[in-house]
Structures are given as C-alpha cells and as structure tokens.
C-alpha cells in the first residue's frame, strides 16, 4: 500500500512530457469509447420510456426507478444482497485460511500452490459450472459413494447448497490473491515476537496477522461482493432458477420483457450499490492506515 502511494508521489513530481501524453491517447480513447460512453448511454436509457417493440422513445421519466420499489423487485434485490454478503464472508474465511497455509510454506513451494489456484481459470466459466452439476448431481461421485452405504437418490442439483458451493468455487481465487499478497509482506518475526510475548494461536491471528492483512481482506471483500451481485448463470444451473438474483432480473428485463429502460434502471441501482460498497471499503482502508500511523 505504502509503496504505491510513494510511486504516485514520485510521478507527480516529474513533469509529463507532451509526447508521452500523446502516447496515452489510445488508452484514454478506449476508456472513453468502451467504458464511459456505454455507461452514459445506460444511464440515459434508465430515464427513457420503452415502446411496445423493445425500442426506446425519447422521454424523461423516473417511473423506471419507481417501479423497482415494487416489493416484487425489491425482494430480488435484498435476496441478492444477502447472497452477496454470505458468499463474501464464506470466501474470506476460506480465502484467509488458504492464504495462511500458502504463506507458511517454503517460498519455493508457494509459486506452485498459487499456480494450482489459477489453473481452473484456464477453463471456461460455464464448463466449470457444468462440472459442478456432474459432481453434485445424481450419478455423480458423491451420489456414488453414498450409494455404496445404501443412501439412494442423493442429488444436490438443484439446491441452495449447490449455489453457495458454486459461488464459493468461482470467487475463491479472487479472494485468495489479495489476502495472500498482503499476508506475504508480514515479517515472520512479528509472529514470533507475539508468541514470545504470550500470545496463543488465536491471539497471534487476532492481534497481529488479521490487522496487518486488513487492506488485503477489504480488497478481497470488494472483489468478491461486487461480481457476486451480477451473477446470473449459477443460480439457474445449480439453483434451479427459482430465486432470481439482480443479474437474472436485468437479463430478463432487457431480453424477454423488451424493457431496456427498466433494465437500465436496475443496472444503475446495482452500480450504485457497488459504488457504496467501494466507498465503505475505502473508508475502512483509511481508518486502518490512520491507526497504523498513530
């Protein structure tokens, strides 16, 4: 964290040359064309009026947002928030334990362990989700083992357990990396010192490692929580699609309902939630670094 701020300060002192500014043009152009412009269009559409054929008419209305207050929609929103929080907590706990294990291995083994975490990313997300259907479904390995012990008809597809497992599997790597990064920079002698001064296993974690890993954990929380809210494949394939998430809602509004303005409004609400969570994390980071300074 401190090294990045120093880099920024150093960068500010140097005067950018005109030529190097021009080199930034492609980058800026792609950010504007691919990021800001589409976002602006979605924001504009969220105040527009839908016509009967899925098009957009020029109009200015707050109806799209007002309609989202309907209990029917807000239920979906709260369900997504709940699932997002649950998945974040689960990913952080498992991610923390995994990171601690990796950090405690000899340095030459750590690279290999991290590679194991990355390997699943080489396969398509959808394929990996389908693999979970096989693992948890009837006819899968779990059902097979249970069958030997006389438990027939085991299948977790579809179920909420399968959804939570699927989400954990998908987002665990994004939780591990930030936590691992900040955990690795902790001087091992701090842990020894804490033990010498009478801290037990729990004390070492609670008073030393956890606070020092704080920024990484907050970053991991953000990286897990935000994408979880937008997921729409996992609830359908693993959970049976009976409880839609905000992601599913947006897809339905845009496609089946041919209601782009309302889809855009739901997207903006999701975006707002993400911004709020980022601000909260930002505040958390500030507080933890202020503490360190004192």
């Amino acid at each position, binding site marked *: 964290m401190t090294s990045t701020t120093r880099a920024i300060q150093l960068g500010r002192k140097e005067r950018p040359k005109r030529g190097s500014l021009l080199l930034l043009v492609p980058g800026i152009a792609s950010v504007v064309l691919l990021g800001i412009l589409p976002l602006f269009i979605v924001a504009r559409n969220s105040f527009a009026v839908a016509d009967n054929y899925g098009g957009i008419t020029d109009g200015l209305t707050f109806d799209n947002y007002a309609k989202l207050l309907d209990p029917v929609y807000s239920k979906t929103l709260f369900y997504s928030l709940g699932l997002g929080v649950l998945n974040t907590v689960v990913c952080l706990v498992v991610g923390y334990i995994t990171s601690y294990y990796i950090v405690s291995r000899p340095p030459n083994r750590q690279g290999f362990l991290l590679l194991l975490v990355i390997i699943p990313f080489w396969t398509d997300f959808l394929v990996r989700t389908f693999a979970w259907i096989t693992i948890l479904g009837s006819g899968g390995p779990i059902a097979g083992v249970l069958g030997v012990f006389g438990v027939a008809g085991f299948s977790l597809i579809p179920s909420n357990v399968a959804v939570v497992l699927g989400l954990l599997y998908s987002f665990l790597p994004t939780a591990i990396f930030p936590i691992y990064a900040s955990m690795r920079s902790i001087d091992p002698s701090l842990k020894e010192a804490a033990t010498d001064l009478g801290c037990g296993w729990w004390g070492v974690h609670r008073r030393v490692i956890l606070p020092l890993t704080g920024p990484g954990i907050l970053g991991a929380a953000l990286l897990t929580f935000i994408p979880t809210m937008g997921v729409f494949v996992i609830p*359908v394939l693993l959970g049976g699609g009976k409880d839609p998430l905000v992601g599913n809602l947006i897809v339905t509004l845009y496609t089946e*309902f*041919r209601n782009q303005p309302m889809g855009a409004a739901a997207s903006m609400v999701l975006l707002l939630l993400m911004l709020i969570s980022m601000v909260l994390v930002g505040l958390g980071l500030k507080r933890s670094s202020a503490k360190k300074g004192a």
Partner: protein
Amino acid sequence: MKKLTTAAVGIVAVLALTSCSTGGSGDGASTELNVYAWADEIPQSVFDAFTEETGIKVNVDNFDSNETMISKLAAGNSGYDIVEPSQYAVQQLVGQDLIETLDKSKIEGIENLAPKFADPSYDPGLEHSVPWVWGTTGLLYNSACTGGEEITSWESLFDPKWKGKVNMLDNMLAAYIAGLQVNGYDADSTDEDEINAATESLIEQKPILSGYNSTNYGDLVASGDVCISEAWGGTSTAKIIEQNPDVHYVLPEEGGSLWVDGLSIAKGAPHQDAAYEFINFLLRPEIAAMATNDGGLASANAAAQEHVTDQGVLSNSAVYATDEEVANADFIVDPGEAMKYYQDGWTRVKAS
C-alpha cells in the same frame, strides 16, 4: 517522437473506423452475404453448397434468443443481410420496421412450403419471412422415473404427486403456454383475466418445481434428476430420446404450440441480390432437406420430405410432429398490448 505520435493517431483512427466497416458495396453483383441465424439451424453444409454454386462468401453470426437478435438490429448498422427470426419475432421486427417487405417477384419455389406455413397468422401472405424450420413445445418425460406412467397432459406439470421432479422452461412465453392451456385457454391469449388465471396456476405450481431451466433440461430428464419437463422439440431433444429409450417427447392433449423460424431480409441490407439468391437456394427441396439430414430439424418445405435420407424421422414426433398431433397446437404470436399482463404476471411468478 513524431513517429510515435503518428502511430498513436493511426491507432485511434483504426479504432474509430472498425466500428463502421461492416457495410459493403451497393451496386453490382455481391460477393458476400452476412447471415445472422440461430446456432445450428442452418447447417454448415448448406452454406458450403451455396458458396460453391454462386461464389458468394457467407459470413455467419449466431444468436441464442430472438431478443438478442432484435436488439442488435435495433441498435442499427448491423450490416446483416439475412436474419432468422421466430414467428413472434417477425411481428416485432415488422413493428419496429427492421426487416424489408419481400419482393415476391424475386422469390422462386415458395409453393414448395407445407400448406400450414403458406399463409401463417403471424405474417399473412408471407410478406416479410420465408419459413425454414419448425418445431413444437411439449412435454419430455422419463418413464423409468415416472414408474412407467405415461404423461399426456400439461396437468402433470402441476400435479403435486411429482413434487421436486418437474421442470419448466425458463422462458416467459413458453411457461404461459402450459399455464394458459392447462386452464383451457389458447396459448396466444391476449385476455387479461385469462392471463391472470394462468399466472395464479404458475404461482401455485412453483413449490412443486425442481426449477426453471431452458438450458440443459434434456440432460436433467435423461439422468432422472427431473421426471417431467416442459420442452422444445428439435435436434437436442431428438438426440436425447435416441440415446435413452426411457425418455419420451409428447405433445400434450391440450394442444401444445408450434414455433417456426424463417428467413427475412434486414432493413437496408447491403447485399440484397445475394439475400434473394440465398432465400431461393434454401427453398429448393434438396437443400431444405439438409435442415433435417444435417441439422436434425423439421423443414417447413413439404417437397423436401422425399429428400430426407432417414425417412423414420418423418414420423418421430420430437422432430416432425404429425398433422394430427399439431391439429390443436397454437402458434405463439406477439401479444402486443397484452405483453404487460404477461410481464407483470411472470415477475410475480418469479418473485413468489
């Protein structure tokens, strides 16, 4: 430094240009054709044969839902010549003025089409589309799972006896086919009370359901995770039935429904002459038969049937439902103004 500057400007220019480079030549014979079709519905062999005969290069893009296709066309400058909308999508595209009115004098072989597609309700006189392939919405069930019981009615999907073993298609209009017909109404109803009654049935049904799934419902039925599922007839369904003798596809006694995907010409298509040539090519009986031979789908072309290599498929209801079976089937047409009753209802179903 100047070199770098020029390079940067060049890159930006290329970025800006690529977004509108899909257009093509206006005059003269086209050498290219841009097709936007359902995945796997026009077999590659058809495109190859067309290119071989005419020398026209075909560029194909696929979509997985009518809605995706419509929004892409609505965004403008798609550059597509031929699109392949389903029946209700034809109505929506006409309503949004996104497809051309066909010049019948340029079309040959339209008399080859089966009588039931010659003058369909969604596009009277086939002014905007030429039917290519068709299929049904019905029931897929696993007789090992139902204990040998034959499933013949939508009512099975609403029967608490099968709690946790029933799947519905995750598609509003498809779900309402079952919801409306089980109440004795037409699947293309635009009546508010009828649609509300269907909504109530679908809400009552939800606790019985294993889930809503229109992706891999066939596998779920084959594995027995689900005993009965609402299903679309077609290639994937036919394959599953072939592999597992316990799996059966039936059109429910309440009627079920028909879908048909046809060929239309996108508004302002850059290669109109090639587009007409392509439509005429696909109307030839021996080419239309390739939809069945290579694609596993039912062709809308009656004259194509004698060119089907596996004649058994003509009596396989998962592909070619017989005229008696589809006698009571409804075409799902665009609900128009009634769309909002469906949407409100479906939202309530999903949130219940």
